[in-house]
């Protein structure tokens, strides 16, 4: 019982230790492999809990409680971790020039282990501790490439997390402590009991603090400003885990700590749902005009988290109302959780595809890419599957969960929730637009520039296809996961071949069979007949760079973006506020730092930006205090061997005299 979780943590620890192998390649490969084993063990644990029911145990004296809800998130971490780690075995080679395999090994394994702990621990203090470990290890991974732009992104990420995650979480921990009165009793059960009799404002403060922390981690508007650069900077396999799993951990916090622990009201639910609706709109429309593959995916992570929060918000708003509405609420919450799993799968898959392209071409800029479909067939197909899944095209998994979110929103009889669903349905088209661009610019057409590009190594392909295959599998047979996912007891109708709510049903199996029969039937009865081959029609130009004969990534939807320009201007303003706040916080940090740090080569340089700290050789305050002593010891080391007895006697006499003199004066 619970053994699998222990095995997993053990594997992660060994994975971290394996980083100390000297050779870079060997160390990243071995540690990624152990991370893979650990993630598989997590999946074993999920199966175990699914079969045997929730279990309580303690590992290294950490109280663990794997509930049905934890299990959903362990499943997410397990799936994403498995695919990303398998992929990383080859992918991490491209960072060889940093030469710091051990940093990756420790940080990556810690990252996975801390996430597994966050969703399973049964006590507030360990929750906060694992959470901080997760933030710290992900921060280290973000600056792993050590490029200036990436380091800046990682610092911004860390400072944002400090102010919006660490501080609120510790304050919440303090609140919890003041409620239960002892550090030994910070288990969630005790806090729940104490909260039940706590005054309303305590509850509001506690829930508010936690909400800020979880919103910041999930990238919910207005705290979305750190996401794009962070995911761009991190190694792609890590971005996949961050977008696929880390964001979902914030959702776990929302469900378990805010909803289950503090409780929910209609107002709170509506607030969460509206935040979700705003986030999905802002995130996705920003993604639409992005031309860097990883930033595009990052903005979509924001957008898709919006969908998930909308679903959970519908649940939080309607379940307290009871009756038929509670059923719709449960459906919404279920759909949100389902979308969390689906998003984890297709978003990691997309990140892995972007990484595969980066691995072979060295860039993720959509403006430069093109024509890879011919050379990287399997990567292209995986990217196509995942793109259709995120765009919610049936029969892929994204369709089912989005559709259930629409059903719950539209049938909620509540204008605000219906409006949220309306935005969600509209934004689904924007998602499609964005992924038509994502796929088309990278894999569509033919480009001479990339004619020698080859498919990526087997482990990377397998990593992508575990996820891309799941988008189709879950899309066609949603019944495979609904058992694990239905922690809200939503009255969904699901069988082997249909899923739905009330009379609103969809039968993916029937649809796929119909579509496949039609496609194959039509194909075979009207087989394509090709006559001659010809170059694409270019109106007879004589000198044309064929690589440029296409529409560039920026030009795809430019007219649309111009027409909704006022939306961007409005949201940019919000963005600027967030950015501005972080800039001032950085300034405050630097101001404090200027009292503790000195730049050595040019002593009177003012520290104004982070770059100042990075460029010069710096001396920290503690070093400065100890420096005289160190200098004395150094001199002593140089001088001592040369000392004669006479000199020693003289020094001894002086010391004794000084001591006596001091004693006399006293």
């Amino acid at each position, binding site marked *: 019982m619970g053994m699998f979780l222990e095995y997993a943590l053990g594997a992660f620890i060994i994975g971290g230790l394996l980083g100390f192998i000297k050779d870079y390649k060997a160390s990243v490969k071995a540690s990624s492999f152990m991370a893979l084993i650990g993630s598989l063990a997590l999946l074993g644990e999920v199966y175990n809990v699914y079969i045997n029911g929730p279990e309580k145990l303690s590992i290294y004296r950490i109280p663990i409680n794997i509930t049905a809800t934890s299990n959903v998130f362990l499943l997410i971490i397990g799936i994403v971790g498995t695919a990303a780690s398998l992929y990383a075995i080859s992918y991490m080679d491209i960072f060889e020039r940093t030469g710091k395999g051990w940093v990756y090994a420790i940080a990556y394994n810690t990252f996975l282990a801390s996430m597994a702990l966050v969703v399973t621990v049964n006590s507030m203090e360990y929750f906060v501790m694992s959470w901080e470990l997760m933030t710290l290890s992900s921060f280290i991974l973000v600056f792993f490439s050590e490029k200036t732009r990436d380091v800046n992104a990682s610092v911004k990420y860390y400072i944002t997390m400090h102010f919006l995650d660490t501080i609120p979480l510790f304050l919440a921990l303090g609140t919890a402590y003041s409620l239960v009165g002892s550090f030994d009793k910070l288990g969630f059960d005790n806090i729940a009991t104490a909260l039940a009799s706590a005054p309303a404002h305590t509850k509001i403060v506690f829930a508010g603090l936690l909400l800020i922390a979880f919103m910041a981690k999930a990238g919910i508007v207005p705290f979305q400003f750190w996401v794009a650069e962070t995911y761009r900077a991190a190694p792609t396999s890590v971005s996949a885990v961050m977008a696929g799993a880390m964001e979902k951990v914030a959702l776990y916090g929302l469900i378990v700590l805010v909803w289950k622990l503090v409780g929910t009201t209609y107002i709170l639910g509506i607030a969460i749902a509206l935040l979700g609706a705003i986030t999905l709109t802002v995130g996705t429309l920003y993604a639409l005009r992005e031309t860097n593959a990883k930033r595009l995916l990052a903005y979509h992570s924001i957008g898709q988290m919006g969908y998930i929060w909308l679903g959970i918000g519908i649940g939080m708003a309607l379940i307290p109302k009871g009756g038929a509405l509670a059923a719709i609420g449960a459906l919404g919450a279920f759909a949100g959780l389902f979308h969390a799993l689906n998003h984890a799968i297709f978003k990691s898959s997309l990140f892995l595809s972007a990484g595969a392209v980066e691995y072979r071409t060295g860039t993720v800029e959509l403006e430069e890419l093109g024509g890879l479909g011919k050379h990287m067939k399997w990567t292209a197909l995986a990217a196509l599957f995942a793109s259709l899944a995120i765009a919610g095209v*049936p029969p892929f998994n994204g369709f089912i969960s989005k559709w259930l979110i629409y059903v719950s929103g539209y*049938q909620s009889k509540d204008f605000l929730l219906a409006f949220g669903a309306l935005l969600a349905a*509209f934004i689904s088209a924007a998602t499609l637009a964005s992924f038509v661009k994502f796929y088309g610019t990278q894999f569509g*057409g033919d480009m001479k520039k990339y004619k020698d590009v080859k498919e990526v190594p087997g482990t990377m392909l397998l990593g992508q296809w575990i996820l891309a295959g799941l988008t189709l599998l879950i899309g066609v047979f949603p019944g495979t996961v609904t058992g694990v996912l239905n922690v809200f007891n939503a009255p969904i109708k699901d069988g082997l071949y249909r899923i*739905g709510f009330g009379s609103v*049903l969809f039968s993916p199996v029937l*649809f796929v069979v119909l579509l496949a029969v*039609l496609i194959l039937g039509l194909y075979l009865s009207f087989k394509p007949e090709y006559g001659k081959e010809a170059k694409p029609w270019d109106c007879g130009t004589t000198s044309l760079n064929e690589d440029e004969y296409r529409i560039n990534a920026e030009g795809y939807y430019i*007219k649309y973006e111009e*027409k909704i320009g006022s939306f961007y201007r409005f949201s940019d303003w919000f963005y600027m506020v967030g950015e501005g706040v972080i800039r001032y916080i950085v300034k405050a940090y630097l101001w404090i730092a200027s009292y503790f740090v000195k730049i050595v080569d040019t002593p009177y340089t003012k520290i104004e930006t982070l770059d100042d700290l990075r460029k010069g050789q710096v001396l920290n305050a503690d070093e400065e205090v100890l420096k005289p002593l160190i200098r004395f010891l150094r001199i002593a080391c140089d001088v001592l061997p040369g000392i004669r007895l006479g000199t020693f006697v003289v020094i001894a006499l002086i010391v004794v005299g000084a001591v006596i003199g001091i004693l006399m004066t006293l």
Partner: protein
Amino acid sequence: MALDIVKLGFNLAGILIILLLPPYLDGIARRVKARLQYRRGPPLMQTWYDLQKLFALPSVRPTKSTLFTWAPYIALASAISAALLLPYGNVVPVDFGFNLVVFFYVILMVSVALMFAGLSVQNAFSHLGSAREMQIILTVEPLIAVLYGVLAYNAGSLSIADIIANLHLTPSLILTYILLAYALYVESGFVPFDIAEAEQEVIGGPLAEYSGRLLGVFYYAIHIKRFALLWFFVSLLTLPWLGPIDTPERAALVLALQFILTVSFYPIIAALEATNARLRIDHVVKMNTRAFFAGVIILAMAFMGW
């Protein structure tokens, strides 16, 4: 057993209508357009003849992409699947999810196939056409989302069967019908919204590189898609007000009504097409954005019970 035969009959009628009627409808439209311009016009079978000819011709191959070859078949299969999800009389030929969202997503798959097909070739014109197609969808989808909202609130469900059974007449519903007619007209890509294909401008857009049989398959898919959208509109317009359709005779009458209305709507569409010139993409975006805000007001009206 007898009932099954009746059902089978309706299924068969539905399938025949789906497969045979759409090119005829286009023939009607061409004739009407010609007459409006004081021309004699081609025979009603002309679109069928065109398709027949295209199917007989081999295609020119501009790329080795597999997607390029398969996309037309995916588009045609999606269009037929969507059309099979509509009621013919009281029978839905293949009920894999008789609700609004599923229907519109399956219809959308025709455009998805079209766009990916356009992007699979290295040709700026077809890329441009695909991007335009997407921008039109981007502006139409919010209107359809409004429609989901009004109908789901009005009838209490997104299931088309429930909507047909429970819809009640309100001012917001009438406005929704108008909005729906507009949205479906735009989504069908009739003039002045034929921006994606825009023959004279971007030489056929996503279809620029298609020829011969593959082009024929695509055209056929587009005709069926237009038919499915119109049939959906006609069904939604008539079925809720006809009371329960419980006898085969009644169902046959309803099917006849659907058929006649579909055929008689086409001249109106043709007249609109003949009297309008193609809009620019930014005009369409602007118009549809306004229509969306109007739609949100309609949704608010629906929730206030109007």
